[in-house]
């Protein structure tokens, strides 16, 4: 998510407010983001390695990692395809209702996750608008992993669209036109000319969607059924341990989750910085 477009080198600090903005930012980041981490460190530091391992490798917890990982993976893959389609259609074509769809893409960011959760659960329940039709062809979504995938996919729809859209807008038409004039088929031009400029943004969007899906809670719990070993995501596992007042276990699991999401975040930012540099270096 880093916006690493290079700033012009500046010889001196001409503009005022360095001290003030640095002070406000550091104070806020320390108090709001960093200080709370000390609680987690203190809690897990009180455990021995074997206690820690016992908690995080508990079969029910391990099963929750697996469910979370593969549902988040499929949800982000779906969003890769759907996001690319939406971005393509919104950038390349004119049609009635285009502005409305463009605006609606951000709905999952603006709509509270709990509201998304009860809405999807109601739509896909066996008597719901979608559920009753799916029932007749033998697909049940509510209280199955498919429900988890749908909830995760819904809450992370905007990521791929909003990372691919600007890249597609700035794609120069010349290469594409030249290739078509030379007789290349559309599919070939897409693969050889368009996709190579597109895939870094697409991958970033998918990775962001995946990271977000791993942590999703509000939208998932209403539709998932939350059966241990089957439809229990790790965020919920964490919540269950908290309700059992088992703070040590919750902290151990949380430290695993936190580590994974931070590693993903730093990897995405590093990678994004790199490919942006490459793009601007051209």
């Amino acid at each position, binding site marked *: 998510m880093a916006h690493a477009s290079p*700033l012009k080198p500046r010889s001196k600090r001409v503009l005022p*407010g360095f001290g003030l*903005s*640095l002070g406000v930012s550091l104070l806020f980041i320390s108090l709001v983001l960093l200080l709370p981490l000390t609680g*987690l460190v203190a809690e897990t530091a009180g455990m021995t390695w074997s206690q820690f391992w016992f908690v995080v490798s508990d079969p029910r917890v391990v099963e929750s990692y697996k469910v979370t990982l593969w549902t988040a993976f499929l949800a982000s893959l779906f969003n890769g395809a759907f996001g690319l389609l939406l971005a393509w259609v919104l950038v390349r074509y004119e049609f009635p209702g285009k502005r409305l769809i463009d605006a609606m893409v951000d709905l999952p960011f*603006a*709509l509270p996750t709990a509201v998304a959760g*009860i809405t999807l659960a109601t739509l896909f329940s066996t008597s719901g608008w979608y559920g009753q039709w799916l029932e007749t062809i033998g697909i049940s979504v509510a209280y199955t992993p498919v429900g988890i995938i749908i909830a995760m996919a819904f809450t992370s729809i905007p990521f791929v669209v909003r990372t691919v859209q600007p890249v597609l807008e700035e794609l120069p038409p010349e290469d594409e036109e030249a290739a078509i004039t030379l007789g290349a088929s559309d599919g070939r031009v897409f693969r050889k000319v368009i996709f190579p400029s597109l895939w870094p943004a697409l991958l970033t969007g998918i990775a962001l969607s995946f990271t977000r899906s791993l942590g999703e809670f509000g939208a998932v719990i209403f539709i998932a059924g939350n059966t241990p070993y089957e439809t229990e995501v790790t965020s919920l596992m964490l919540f269950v341990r908290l309700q059992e007042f088992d703070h040590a276990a919750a902290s151990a699991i949380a430290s695993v989750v936190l580590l994974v999401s931070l590693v993903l975040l730093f990897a995405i930012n590093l990678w994004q910085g790199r490919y942006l540099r490459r793009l601007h270096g051209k």
Partner: protein
Amino acid sequence: MKYQSHHRVGDQPWLRRTLILAAVALSALLLAIPLVLIFTQAFSAGWGALVSNIGDRYTLHAIGLTLFVALLTVPLNLVFGTALAWLVTRFRFPGRKLLVTLIDVPFAVSPVVAGLLYLLLYGRNGWLGSWLADYDVQLMFSWPGIVMVTIFVTCPFVARELIPLMQQQGTEEEEAAVTLGASGWRLFRRVTLPNIKWALIYGVVLTNARAVGEFGAVSVVSGNIRGQTNTLPLHVELLYQDYNIAGAFAAASLLAAIAILTLAIKGVAEWRQARLLAREPADRNPQ
């Protein structure tokens, strides 16, 4: 070279029509119809029932608490987001990139983990919480805890809206103003603010939407006491678990209305900001 429409990929009418149809159909299924369902369910028992559902004592309390939380959260995050955006786009210093990555942390962290972090620190057993308890200060399972986790979850939004824009706009105008003798606050108000106004407005509106709607983190630290620490999203869950579907969707429709308003303001803000950017720098700031 003149742009020729039939020379680009995907311009064949059949392909264009198929792709547009697929995009419209999927958007309808995944975005529009869910939104319609919320209001259909909320109105399912008629206007009278909707009004009495929203007018319910506990629902009203949840609305009040939620607005109170947003009222405290949004201004704080506005100040932080603006300061951070100014810092990372107007100055270069060691650690700048790290700061930009750090503010994305709340995006990447599961809301349940966010709530847990605060609970561990400020709860009765936390090192800070036990010290506060000696002075009879309890932050968790009451409104201060809700405000604190909401600030955590929503702190990136203003900065995220401002940073790309302020980077793109550069600093020439501001440097010129400094050379002409403008002081710090005056410079920000007269030169910077008019240029970033619409992005800032959308940042605030989005922060508000997320503050009002936060669920996972808040449910860890709230204690879910009906009529006391129940925010509107928690109240939606409570009603839904009570099988009061009409009530749950009545409360949800208020949150959905805020979401729709947020998207509408985004549309206007983007349009105005684009118009602002398209103009020449010279006539961007009259006087």
